């Protein structure tokens, strides 16, 4: 099930991103391990709640409690197999939901398959996932996109020497 929501106005990708079949399961096979897709993807955990921002288009992403934990594990390099094992005791997270969630993160270009060696999950991840109150969920918001993309805090475009202000797509 696709659970991403689109907030705000303006042109935006919707949940019906390419790469999803009718049941909402990604056509893409899972990679063994993932990494942040580009240097434009920045993120922070606020009291355990992950917030992710794509500086290239100004979209930002919020997560459910279980989603925050899985995001943190994935960007820490925890392998997909280890993550699936860690979620085995979590009533709200089955393998299909996990695959779907990872597929969404890839579709949103937040994560990309990595060639790194998959890391084991932390000892406390299974308990943390079992204690989660909400199903896996990521929501995408574009209400700040026009403000963030024109803010002058952007890398200088080397050939021109000007801050690269990216167009809202």
């Amino acid at each position, binding site marked *: 099930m696709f659970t991403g929501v689109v907030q705000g106005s303006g042109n935006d990708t919707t949940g019906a991103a390419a790469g999803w079949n009718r049941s909402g399961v990604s056509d893409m096979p899972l990679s063994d391990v993932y990494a942040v897709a580009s240097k434009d993807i920045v993120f*922070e955990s606020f009291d355990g709640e992950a917030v992710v*921002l794509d500086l290239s288009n100004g979209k930002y992403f919020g997560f459910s409690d279980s989603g925050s934990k899985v995001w943190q594990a994935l960007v820490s390099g925890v392998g997909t197999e280890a993550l699936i094992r860690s979620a085995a005791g979590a009533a709200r997270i089955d393998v299909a939901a996990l695959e779907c969630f990872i597929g969404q993160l890839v579709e949103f270009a937040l994560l990309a398959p990595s060639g790194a060696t998959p890391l084991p999950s932390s000892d406390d991840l299974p308990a943390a996932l079992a204690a989660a109150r909400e199903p896996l969920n990521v929501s995408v918001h574009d209400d700040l996109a026009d403000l963030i993309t*024109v803010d002058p805090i952007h890398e200088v475009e080397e050939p021109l020497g000007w801050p690269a202000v990216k167009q809202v797509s």
Partner: protein
Amino acid sequence: MSGYGVVIPAYNASATIAETLRSVAAQTTRPELVVVVDDGSTDDLAAAVRGIDLPLELLRQGNAGPGSATTRGIAALSTPFIATLDADDLWLPGKIAAQLAHLERLPGTSGVFTHIRSFRDGEPDAMAPTATPGWSRSTMLMRRAAVESVGPMIDPPGGRGEMIDWIARARESGFVLDMMPDMLALRRIRPGSLSYGRDAARDRGYLEVARLAMLRRAQSKASSS
């Protein structure tokens, strides 16, 4: 009555503020008051602003961030319109007149911004190839009632993103903010200025702004259900 006041937060801006103030003095519509808020500078701002033909008030506070300094300056103004400006940016002479005319034409609009073009410090003719929508302090002109209703500008940890947060809150409050197609302000680009380049602390400011927007949305959802 279409009088306007100007707020300029300034931190170690003595090298640029005189030129900034001269661009205010060159406006075809003269301000009633310009409030420069020294945000804990270690340079001699008072000397730098001396001798410019403007009704000027210089306030000082301990370093608390550009949002805090802007809020302080707004509180010192009683004009019906409030313009804000970074201490290193410049206005073109017709900026305020065009914006005031816009607001007079459109009573339902609470604030109006303009396009902005970057120039390289020390090379006034070295302009960025294009103007961009200036959703920023240096282009903003607002009606006082809306500014007071939106409340203080809040500096996120990391120091930047306060204008994004404040403009987002103004929109969420239902205030209409327009973007004029005209390029009426210039943004100074110089290595080392607050708005140049990118680093992790500034990204964190953005993320905090995004988090606050989601919290407001959750609260608004909870209170309406």
